[in-house]
């Protein structure tokens, strides 16, 4: 479990990092917190020729609120977001979900951008960013572009990022007054990837129900959202939303759980997350 040989680059700013990615084409991989990439290297499952280490680019680690939106630098540590007072006030679903990511030691190192760009199909942050209608800011040789979360997550460990693009910032819009939220996760042990996780955000003008762990990444459960939109936000609507979400999920069997079991989890956890959100809406 030692990585194969690779070259190492340590750029000091985003422009240099992007230039390095462009220069090496698909042979380079950005290194963020390394909590997923380094194990992949050690198992020799990833064999990039060049690692572009982003850890010295201080500008990428900022967390701030501007124009009402939360702006998280791609290299902000998960633990920093989890502990941020502005985040807790305005986007409390984020620390709640981050608490399910592995253990404190890993969250101290792991980054928000790294998790999103890696897009493990059972990871918490992609699901929550989808539920929050976040936008991803990507920097490439041709400049900057904004990618909606809906377009960003493109399948198992796939994103809309091009090989020469770097995810630099995540923008999360402000949640209107009276928004309720719920986050539910079932995992075998504290800190494991989710068997299933469900993020529900109920805004006065619409619902977001996102399920992850059932397929190739976070999925909007539009049928469940429609149920809540039609029937209003009460316990009965949550029951029906759970059924709708399960009906729309198509998990496969894997060594940790058979498909039918994950479907049961989607029902149970969607109901619970929805009920949590309803209670919080009323506060």
């Amino acid at each position, binding site marked *: 479990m030692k990585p194969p040989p690779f070259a190492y680059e340590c750029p000091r700013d985003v422009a240099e990092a992007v230039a390095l990615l462009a220069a090496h084409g698909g042979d380079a991989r950005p290194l963020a917190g390394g909590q997923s990439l380094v194990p992949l290297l050690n198992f020799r499952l990833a064999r990039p020729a060049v690692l572009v280490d982003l850890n010295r680019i201080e500008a990428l680690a900022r967390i701030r609120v501007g124009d009402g939106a939360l702006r998280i630098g791609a290299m902000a540590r998960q633990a920093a977001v989890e502990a941020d007072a502005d985040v807790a006030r305005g986007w409390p679903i984020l620390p709640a979900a981050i608490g399910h990511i592995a253990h404190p030691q890993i969250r101290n190192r792991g980054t928000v951008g790294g998790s999103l760009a890696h897009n493990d199909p059972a990871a918490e942050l992609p699901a929550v960013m989808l539920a929050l209608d976040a936008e991803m800011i990507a920097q490439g040789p041709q400049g900057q572009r904004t990618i909606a979360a809906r377009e960003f997550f493109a399948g198992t460990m796939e994103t809309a990022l091009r090989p020469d693009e770097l995810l630099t910032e995540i923008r999360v819009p402000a949640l209107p007054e009276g928004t309720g939220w719920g986050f539910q996760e079932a995992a075998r042990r504290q800190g*494991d*990837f989710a068997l299933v996780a469900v993020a529900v955000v109920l805004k006065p003008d619409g619902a977001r129900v996102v399920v992850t762990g059932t397929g190739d990444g976070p999925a909007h459960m539009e049928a469940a959202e429609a149920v809540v939109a039609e029937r209003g936000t009460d316990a009965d609507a949550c029951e029906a939303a759970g059924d709708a979400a399960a009906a729309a999920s198509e998990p496969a069997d894997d060594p940790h759980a058979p498909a*039918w079991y994950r479907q049961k989890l989607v029902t149970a956890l969607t109901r619970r997350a929805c009920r949590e959100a309803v209670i919080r809406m009323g506060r």
Partner: protein
Amino acid sequence: MTTRLIGEPVERREDARLLTGRARFIDDIRLPGMLHAAVLRSPHAKARFTRIDAAAALALPGVHTVITHEDLGTANTPMPLLNEDPGFIHPRTHQALAPGQVRFVGEAVALVVADSRYLAEDALDLIEVDYAPEAAAVDLVAAAKPGAPLVHDDTDSNVACRTADSNGDIEGAFAAADFVLREELRPERGAAQPMETRGVVARYDESLDQLTIWDTTQAPVSARGVIADKLGLPEAAVTVIAPDVGGGFGVKIFLVYPEELLVPFAARMLGRPVKWIEDRREHFIGSNHERLMVHRIEVAATTDGCILGIRDHFLYDSGAYCPYGPINAQCAQAILPGPYKIPAVHTEYEAVYTNTPVVSPYRGAGQPHGNFVMEAAMNHVARALGLDAAEIRRRNLVRPEDCPWDSGRIFQGNTPLIHRDSDYPAQLAKTLEALDYAGVKRSQPAEREQGIFRGAGIAFFVEGTGISPYEGVEVRVEPTGHVHVTTGYPSQGQGHHTTLAQIVAETLAVPPEQVVVESGRSDRFAWGVGTFASRAAVVGGNAALGAAEAVRARALELASDELEVAPEDLVLADGAVHVKGAPQMAVPLAALAYAADPINTLESGTEPGLRAADYYRSPDGAFASGVHGLIVMVDAATGMVEIEKYVVVHDCGVMINPTIVDGQILGGTAQGIGGAFYEKLRFDEAGQPLVTTFMDYLIPTAMEIPPIEIHHMESRSSLNPLGVKGVGEGGAIPALAAFAGAVEDALEPFGATVRAVPLDPPAILALIEGRCEGRAAS
């Protein structure tokens, strides 16, 4: 005054080093000029090969050698068979490097030695082997059937061993039964997974012709013998040292793993020190496993729940070879009746080769399996007869007034399992009280109305400990006044140095700080076998006591000469011998040690030194016992289980150090919970391992293990001078059955019956919904 130390919660002398990063584990050993090894392992569960092409690997700069079976010569003869079994049909042991045929994914095929481990692994990628894969026998039940692909082509069946053991009138028991339970019970395959993996460092000193091997083994003295023999060296030229070892649990005792031979072979061949550190993936496929058995048990009972007899026929997965002998099966069948007074028992097992890693003991060595089978069967008989799970146990227990009560079973080391020195009914009563068992039962009807599924489970255990062979300890008082204690069996974290110091310091009436303990170095003490089977305290502890008592007697003799007072009028206290009632008339032990080495006046035929060695073997072992009880809450929508309370009632006789006893119980119970709900190894049909990381092998962490409430019942063992019974494995043994019983109790409204462990949430939801496809035994 003599200070009482045995029985005191003395702080572990090991902890300061271990907890502040000052320990010296195998990977901390760095020698000048040291090279690094990596092992090429078979990617096939069964294949033949004729050619290993290492040219490209050898051409890589920094690669020193690639060793294959052809290079080993006589060093590659089959490893010894450690334990005989009367039913062996064809025992087969492994070789250091597979000679043209591989029998499991992970089997060692070649060793690369390079400047760094990184380079060595790069070289592994460049070695080509012309494998011709063959059909593999993977599933235990299928492998046992005639016509299954053969693991060893020179046999006619994968059944390595078929053994039966009977006591009592089994036919009569079943003829007299009102009720017979028949079912198949299945504890799945798991592994110990100590925090530290295995590792070997070897250095050959050409000028002295001495080979020194640092090895994470639990048996350095025994390993020395095998390594010297295979390498054609005198034992005197080989030293094996077990440094600080980060957990063993049985997986680190094996004679020997390929790397324990290959690394010294390479060091001698290259004239450079060589290090090999097992990585976690290798540990999953290249180190031994444990656990899988399939039992078909029949229980004959009367309507009032008296067990008249049991028959158990079981298959035991041996893995690709059987070098340890079918010890796990032997222990499972011996321990099967547990603490119950069952007049007739018939057991029969078949140890079966499969194309999977070798199986050898892991904490409990088959006892968790036998225990799960018996305790699960007790629960199921109770339910069938409409009895409470605690009540049926109470009715069948061996009672103190029956003891000694010979169960008729023979445990490992040819040890007869005779019940004595314990009070099973009192253990049960204590468990039920601590658990508030009656309270749980009372609340259940109302809770179930509200969709709350809470249940209680209990499981007894009887743990074989202190078995043969012997261990030895030498105690020597130095002229400095320090007491030097040496033994061969090493520690993997059990705190032996603390407990040995307690025994010796109390016996010699010296402060424990004056006692220096060394263990696990074949150059310091080369007798005895190793650390396993919960036997160090019993066998080593009593040897330490015997040696210290002999030193005390010698000290009194010497002091008697010195003080001209009869020995019976002398006592030891505060590091000196003094006259009873006249403490000012004293001679320090240091002075006696000096006097015991009369260099100019020693008489031929006498021995110098204030020292003694003692060797102890306990022919009847020392059986420990106890009960685990727990309360669980099952989430009926997700199948998740929360343990609300966990109680252990435990009797390991005299506790030398209660803190260390508690640690053994807590760690063992955590591993038992792992086996009950989390840890399971899986293979696909071709024998490819599906679980090779801690993402997939779910060891419970501090977050999953609940607080564990321990109640000690200290019934002195009548079988040894210290009065101790072993404590290493009892925590792990009954947890499977207790957990399964608690889940069944919680899900009683659904008629849930648990027949396989570990459970997992899908299996539990399947029990609730009456599904077949979620069963844990998939």
